[in-house]
């Protein structure tokens, strides 16, 4: 019998875990192979549901880390007091199964046809949906110019460090480290502020399209900074995941 879902509804499904790869000491990328996945757009989410033996259920929304057309992946930061993330980034292993549904979201998404230049601003694990956009840009051969400014506590906390260190077909990646800098650090230091944005971000006259994802305080100051530079608020898309450095 053909599988049918009620139009517009999201169905839960069980996806095998293909691999778990550690990006940092507390952040893992989980590749998943759901049986019924219609594909996603760069920047979208999926919902994960864990069910305890007593029937208690906890749901969380995670940004999709992979680009459209790639094997589905999420990147999860382990929060020690979290209800879901210590299981996902700590206990889950290849061969396990995970209940999920998606894709979800129509606001914080980017298609090459949306154009740019793209100004991506990431705070901590807020880099995850932006990584999907960068990969999508490369995979589609898009010539939209792109810059990523990535704010992280320390160099050891930078997610996708090797991948972002490679040339992203013309995408420029800048870092600012807020708590600690390695010896000989030549990147930026401290929190994102107006002078850093003025130095790193596309000038407003190029009509850039901005995506900002991170903790609430990071997103608020980054968005205000871009608007101060002259970015139209409607071309500054934001996604906030609370006060901590992850989800």
């Amino acid at each position, binding site marked *: 019998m053909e599988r049918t879902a009620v139009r517009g509804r999201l169905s839960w499904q069980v996806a095998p875990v293909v691999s778990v790869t550690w990006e940092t000491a507390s952040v893992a990328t989980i590749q998943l192979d759901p049986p019924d996945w219609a594909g996603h757009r760069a920047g979208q*989410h999926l919902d994960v549901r864990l069910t305890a033996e007593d029937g208690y259920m906890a749901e969380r929304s995670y940004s999709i880390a992979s680009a459209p057309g790639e094997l589905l992946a999420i990147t999860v930061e382990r929060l020690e007091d979290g209800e879901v993330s210590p299981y996902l980034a700590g206990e889950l292993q290849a061969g396990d199964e995970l209940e999920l549904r998606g894709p*979800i979201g129509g606001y914080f998404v980017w298609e090459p046809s949306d154009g740019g230049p793209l100004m991506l601003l990431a705070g901590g694990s807020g880099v995850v949906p932006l990584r999907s956009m960068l990969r999508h840009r490369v995979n589609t051969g898009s010539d939209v110019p792109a810059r990523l400014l990535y704010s992280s506590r320390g160099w050891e906390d930078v997610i996708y460090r090797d991948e972002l260190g490679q040339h992203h077909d013309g995408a420029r990646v800048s870092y600012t480290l807020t708590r600690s800098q390695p010896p000989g650090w030549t990147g930026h230091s401290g929190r994102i502020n107006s002078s850093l944005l003025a130095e790193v971000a596309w000038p407003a006259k190029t009509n850039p399209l901005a995506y900002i994802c991170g903790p609430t305080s990071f997103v608020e100051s980054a968005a205000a900074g871009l608007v101060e530079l002259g970015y139209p608020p409607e071309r500054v898309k934001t996604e906030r995941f609370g006060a901590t450095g992850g989800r």
Partner: protein
Amino acid sequence: MDPIDGNGIGGLLIDAFGKEMTAAISTCATCGARRPVAELVVYQRAPGTVVRCRTCGNVIMVLVKRADSIDVDLSGLASLSNQGLP
């Protein structure tokens, strides 16, 4: 739990409205501020999800999930439009 924003409840909104709503434009019934649902302030404290205006802080929506239904209180919402969106 610290507040997130409307991007993080896209699935719950599909449960409640039957379609993607994070890009829909909301108007706060209290102050009249208009913004995408994705930009609203979201508190996920049991037993429900409380959505507040980022301008005036008043409650715009309350969604409470039950075993096989969702209770939705939209009394803080003046309008919600996904017209023109895919």
